């Protein structure tokens, strides 16, 4: 190392002084690594390879696409938009006033026809449109520590503006997300029989076990002047409040569904379900839609035609590409390693 040092123009004098004694100490050690001669696989992009890759992708993708499409087709889904219907005719002019008036009882009845047989479990979702659960102000407005641990109820940082009550005592659960909890309710009857909605196990298990404490109870919740969404039963620990747990997993997009409950009963085609719902939640301010969704599920989840179609399209495209390259290869083959393709053979005038 002594010979190498700074790059300043040091005419600091020449030195011929002795490199002789340490002659071989500077000899680089030979190893395949340092000489960059490690055994290496050097794949070549041959037409054969290209064609087989595309074919392979096609062979894998098309069956997946078919399977996904089939799974999606087996899912039965009932979607019912009720926010416009559940407003008395005289109030349609001022929906916001209607929904904000606590004195009006907002019960509403809907009849849903089952288009096909639906096997249990049937999932009940509510779908909101144009609701920005992913807004930064909204997403950040929570405090995980407080939800998990009863001792940390005072930790309300980040919960602005739903942090504390007027007198300064902390709100549990704090923050905008919890405050704006969805509060429409649904009751289902099939014929005369009540279809019970099971609200257990609609949230992630890990959320119930690790994220929402079993000894944390709501405190000072929805006590402010400004009412948000649903109230919570202050005697029920947070890990039992599954609606809240589901709601607290903020959606990625402004249109989202959230699980409301499960119906453990098979439904037959053309059954008519009567839904008695309470239309409490204000989506009218921002022209949001509210929909009730009943859906079965497959191994893939809910109805999702897109995945299958995408797989089929890409699989098909790959088959097409494989064919195209085969044709190219047959029509205008380039012999591998054909020296006539070297640049100096192609334009002999020089580079």
């Amino acid at each position, binding site marked *: 190392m002594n010979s190498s040092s700074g790059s*300043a123009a040091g*005419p600091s004098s020449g030195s011929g002084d002795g490199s002789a004694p340490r002659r071989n100490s500077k000899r680089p050690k030979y190893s395949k690594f340092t000489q*960059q001669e490690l055994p290496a696989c050097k794949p070549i992009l041959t037409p054969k390879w290209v064609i087989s890759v595309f074919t392979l992708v096609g062979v894998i993708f098309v069956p997946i696409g078919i399977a996904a499409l089939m799974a999606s087709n087996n899912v039965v889904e009932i979607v019912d938009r009720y926010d416009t219907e559940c407003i008395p005719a005289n109030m349609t002019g001022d929906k916001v006033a209607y929904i904000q008036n606590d004195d009006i009882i907002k019960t509403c009845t809907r009849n849903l026809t089952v288009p096909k047989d639906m096997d249990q479990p049937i999932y009940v979702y509510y779908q909101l449109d144009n609701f920005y659960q992913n807004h930064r102000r909204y997403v950040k407005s929570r405090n*995980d520590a407080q939800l*998990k641990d009863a001792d940390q109820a005072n930790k309300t940082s980040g919960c602005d503006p739903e942090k504390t009550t007027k007198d300064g005592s902390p709100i549990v659960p704090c923050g905008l997300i919890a405050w704006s909890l969805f509060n429409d309710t649904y009751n289902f009857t099939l014929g005369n029989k009540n279809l019970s909605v099971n609200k257990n196990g*609609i949230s992630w298990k890990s959320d119930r076990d690790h994220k929402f404490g079993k000894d944390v109870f709501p405190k000072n919740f929805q006590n402010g002047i400004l009412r948000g969404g649903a109230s919570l039963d202050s005697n029920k620990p947070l890990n039992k409040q599954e609606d809240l747990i589901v709601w607290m997993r903020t959606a990625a997009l402004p249109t989202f*569904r959230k699980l409301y409950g499960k119906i453990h009963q098979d439904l037959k085609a053309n059954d008519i379900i009567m839904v008695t719902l309470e239309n409490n939640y204000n989506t009218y301010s921002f022209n949001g839609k509210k929909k009730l969704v009943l859906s079965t599920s497959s191994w893939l989840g809910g109805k999702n035609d897109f995945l299958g179609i*995408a797989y089929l399209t890409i699989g098909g495209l790959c088959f097409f590409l494989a064919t195209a390259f085969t044709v190219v290869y047959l029509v205008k083959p380039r012999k591998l390693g054909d020296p006539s393709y*070297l640049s100096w*053979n192609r334009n002999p005038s020089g580079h």
Partner: protein
Amino acid sequence: MARRVRKRDRLRWSLLYTFACARPAVLADDEQTPFLQGPGYSRIVHCNQSQLHGKKPLDYSSNYISTTRYNAITFLPKALFEQFRRVANIYFLLAAIISITPVSPFNPMSMIAPLAFVVGLSMAKEALEDWRRFYQDMKVNSRKVSVHNGQGQFGYKPWQKIRVGDVVKVEKDRFFPADLLLLSSSYEDGICYVETMNLDGETNLKVKRSLEVTLALEDDEAFRDFTATLRCEDPNPNLYTFVGNLEYERQVYALDPNQVLLRDSKLRNTSYIYGVVIFTGHDSKVMQNATESPSKRSRIEKKMDKIIYILFTVLVLISLVSSIGFAVMTKYDMPNWWFLEPNNTTSLYDPSKPVLSGVFHMVTALILYGYLIPISLYVSIEVVKVLQATFINQDVLMYDEEIGKPARARTSNLNEELGQVDTILSDKTGTLTCNQMDFLKCSIAGVSYGVRASEVEIAAAKQLASEASGSPEHHDDTEELGEDNAGFYGTSEIELANGITCMVEKSHKPAIKGFSFEDDRLMHGNWTNEPAASTILMFFRILALCQTAIPEHNKETGGFTYEAESPDEGAFLVAAREFGFEFCKRTQSSVFIREKYSPSEDPVEREFKILNLLEFNSKRKRMSVIVRDEGGQIILLCKGADSIIFDRLSKNGRLYENDTSKHLNEYGEAGLRTLALAYRMLDESEYSAWNTDFLKAKTTIGPDREAQVERVSEKMERDLILVGATAVEDKLQRGVPQCIDKLAQAGLKIWVLTGDKIETAINIGFACSLLRQGMKQISLSITNIDLLTHDANKAAKENLSMQITNAFQMIKLEKDPDAAFALIIDGKTLTYALEDDLKNQFLSLAVDCASVICCRVSPKQKAMVTRLVKEGTGKVTLAVGDGANDVGMIQEADIGVGISGVEGMQAVMASDFSISQFRFLERLLVVHGHWCYKRIALMICYFFYKNIAFGLTIFYFEAYTGFSGQSVYDDWYMLLFNVVLTSLPVISLGVFEQDVSSEVCLQFPALYQQGPRDLFFGWYRIIGWMFNGLSASIIIFLLNIAIFYHGAFCAGGQTADLAAVGTTMFTCIIWAVNVQIALIMNHFTWIQHLFVWGSVVAWYLFLVAYGLSSPTISGNSHQILSEALGPAPVYWSATLLVTAVCNIPYLVHISFQRTFNPLDNHVIHEIKHYKKDVEDQHMWKREKSKARQKTKIGFTARVDAKIRQLRGKLHRKVSSLTIHTVS
């Protein structure tokens, strides 16, 4: 130190030398005083009274030198400043500052940590480099020199302690510690020899003479009471001027550069000198010459900056879009979003002040989309380059066994620039040649002696052999020939088709340094049997007598070694000794030769009285001695350039002229340095008449003295009788012609810039095949114009302009496509050619010529030529040199390469790369340069691709969140993306990628052209990659959004939340970019596999670990893989789909490109892969030879030319034969 007085020390050289200036007499007081008091001439030195220089105004700078950039205090601010000169770093610094405020979309650590890491790493590198500089300075500063302590006692002191005014004693072969005034030397007349290699690269010794008055100060004691006052110019960088006077014993004497010994030059052939320190440390001329080494950046990096500017623009644009969107949404929509409590907000989201919120959001957005600017790019590139440099340092094939030095990449900034070099500017001495002369051949009385072939001949014959006989080509020309030179000997005789025999006898390693001659006709006294024995005798005498060397008795061997001013002369003396004419003693007036006519005889010592010595200079190009032999006969012995000697032959002296000139041509063609030897018998009267004139001329006082002496000398040097000619091989360094040949074939242009004489330079041009017979030499020179007046200056320029125009005409009119031109220009002419109005003309002429040789150039001019080429052609220049005189050029060029040979370290210290031999340049450029260029180019492209693909998804998602600045990814993912998850694969690409193996790189020099033509980092490529990134980002985002739109994504019926979508999207990105890099790579060792697939695995491992951590850390990502995504087939099928779709366009593109438009490296790779090179050797060989650029220089071109010439001859012969038969 006892003074050893040797006999030769007593010589009075001043009496012998013809052109030695007589000491000017004492100056009259009134003449000098006004002269030395103006500004610029204020320095006063109290000799031997250094204590007087302790306080102002005489407190000059100390002799401590420092070339470091920082010191302990300035390091932090200065180094930080350097770091934040990079635009991207400033951006990240601002981002880090802002990240502490609530405006930031991320937590502050994720911004600060990477920045601290990047900046810290770069600063650590700076600190290390500066430490090494400091260490080197310390080594120099602590060298010891003997200094007068008072009372006539001398003691050793480190250099840094020396003060102005100190009297120092410097011993033989030591460097001068500062600029000194020479007081006296071990020679009685106060001369000393100085080697200025480190200053100007000239290897011949220079004579310095002290003033007559200080000659008496010749031992330690004499300095007890010595005082004098010296007034001189202020420190300045002019090496060749010095103005000052010395007031000593109440007399004032004028001083000139002859009395000044410069720091960093070396005392030679003189046991010791005494001197007074005039300039110390940074005041010394050599330090004044030093320029701050510029920090160099490669072209790719400069272009990368432009890309970063483009990305910045994109960043600002999308931030603007995002902010406007946000402001609009905040104003019109947010009041309706009761769930955000719009009436109770901070100004970040205040619907009543949308503009203010928008402005705040702009800041947020700039940080959020910062992932477009790859912060880790700089640090990754730095890491990659350091590793690449390590590979260069570790290359066994660039290790020189003899010197024991490996190649060194001293800065790692320029690795990729090595792959784009267009022009090489090379020094000659020590770079191309070893500066060792070997007496190889001679022509005496029209007979050529000496059977050994020069290296050029061997190389050319070798080439001829392989080309003409069609024998299976050797594996690697360079190596094989290199080995030949190293010592595989043998004789090969090559017969060409047309019957011309080329005899090649390869040399034994010369047993005697400087003597490779082999011919029994002359050796061992056999010459006495030759027909022209008397001429041969004269030839040997001229060799032995016509010189200025000093013999030195070697006690070990009993023989003599010679200390000559030039290596040629040494070679002549050694040759004369071997022939039996041993120069053994020199006295004031005589030279003694031990002559031995046959091996059995005892030598006879003969004395030749030296009457006059007519010195060599570059204008005269000859030297003569006039001697009186033992018989009283006066003879003028002359050696000189053939053209000069031939002009001065007498009528009856031309007996051997034709034969000799034929031989001279042959020698020249063989790359040898030639001199013609002649003599003239004088009778007494003629001599004494001339001598009177001569003495008169010599004692003339005035400026025309030298001209007069020359004129008188001229009178004597005529009517010569030609004896013969010598051919000396200026030993080229090993493998130089082959290397030049290969580099030329790789399309590089080679310029030689040398401080040497024009003849020497031309000879070397021949030797290393930059010039050849049949090449048209365009010589630009301005002669005999008085340069003092303004008009003359103008005239000179006009003259030069004319010459250039004529040369252009000549090139234009040339019909022969094989014709090659060589441009030769000397330093004086270059001064004009480099002026603004002519330089472009000059450059375009030079570019049209196959080789360019600039002789007699000063270090400054070397740098100026380099700058001209660099700026004029806009292409990458590489300067290679070994001496301090090359420092300017090395620093000026885009890449400076220092040869760490035997000479000083200056060139190496200033260089970016150091190699121990010129021939390693080939491997450095063609293998390492080529690889590094491709690696860095691919790496940067990929980096931009990857960051665009990632960064834009964040932007798209914004549109779905009301432009609120919420990121779809967890902060941790974003932090890890650049630092952990995608950095190792790209580093492995940058370090290990090889498109073809090193052998193939060397076999197909044309592959190198991909660099200078910038095939892999052109704008087309870069934009292509950016589009690839754009399409990947769109694909990743849209497919994921569509898949997770609103339905349940798993069998449990739960719907996907922000964390699930973000994690899936991120998984897709990790897969897509890693598969993409796998598609780019051509070369997979286990390392690449480990890094690429390891990165993917690392992501899953991280996800599991993150999921297991406490929910207060992981938030919504708690157990996301194990509970939510892992069991969901949608997650895995989305990954597969997105990865495939992202990479299909690229796959289609490269498949298409390979089918229709394969690059050279693709085809060669295929040939190699299918072993076609083994099956079809003919094709392989043919392509290898086609891959060379058509060159006009290098021995391949030379052989081609020779073959053309022979064919032409044969053709003529055949046609004349036909005519003959017909008639």
